[in-house]
């Protein structure tokens, strides 16, 4: 029997992998992908609870998170492209000065 705990454990594992990804990688594109992975883990938890509680509010929240993720990725990638134009590198350690 598939319980809500199975899904929450999977969600916790995926979220932790995403957090480690943000910490260990210095490429902002991959850090961004790790953030997307963390958002996906949260989505999985929402859908799992929506099924457990037999209430669809969780699925509506996932829909809203999808929209926010799309907007966030568009703006974030535009910032990375602008950073690359400015400095010819996208290593995050090189981009520690706020004022270009």
């Amino acid at each position, binding site marked *: 029997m598939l319980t809500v705990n199975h899904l929450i454990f999977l969600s916790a594992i995926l979220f932790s992998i995403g957090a480690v990804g943000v910490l*260990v990688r210095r490429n902002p594109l*991959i850090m961004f992908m790790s953030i997307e992975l963390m958002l*996906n883990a949260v989505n999985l938890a929402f859908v799992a609870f929506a099924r457990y509680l037999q209430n669809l509010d969780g*699925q509506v929240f996932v829909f809203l998170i*999808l929209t926010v993720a*799309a907007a966030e990725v568009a703006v974030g990638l535009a*910032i990375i492209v602008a950073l690359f134009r400015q400095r010819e590198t996208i290593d995050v350690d090189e981009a520690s000065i706020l004022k270009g």
Partner: protein
Amino acid sequence: MELAIFYLFASIAIVAALGMVVLRNAVHSALSLAVVFVALAALYVLLNAPFIAAAQVMIYAGAILILFVFVIMLLSPRVDQGAGALKWQRPLAALCGLVFAVELAIVAASALLPTERGPFTPERLAEIGDVQAVGALLFTDFLLPFEITSLLLLVAMVGVIVLAKKR
């Protein structure tokens, strides 16, 4: 049967997620992330959420990942050198991640879940349809958040144009 499908897709998702973090080449990471998205979409189907599964494949695997691949192609970043600024950063990060995962698991295992259930039993969902039920909620109870997301997308679009415009 349900549990076997869950373990299959859960292991695919975890292995692909680890691959995304570990692989050196950014394109390989993006492809691993696509595998994670599709495995999670399969789990959403298992959880009686076909609308979310379809949206997941269309928006995450379709739109967001294509955007990532375009930017990787545009910037053609060198293969990640690996070594961060600090020598002990990686083992420390792995340790922190492990501690964090254990903490989350303990909290999840010891949480008291409410016993009160909503009206959408699997039978009722099969009767009225998942997409219809979610759509009805979006246009009644969640109408204001739904409209605000359109404003959010507009703001994001304007922001991206301003950021990416040649000066």
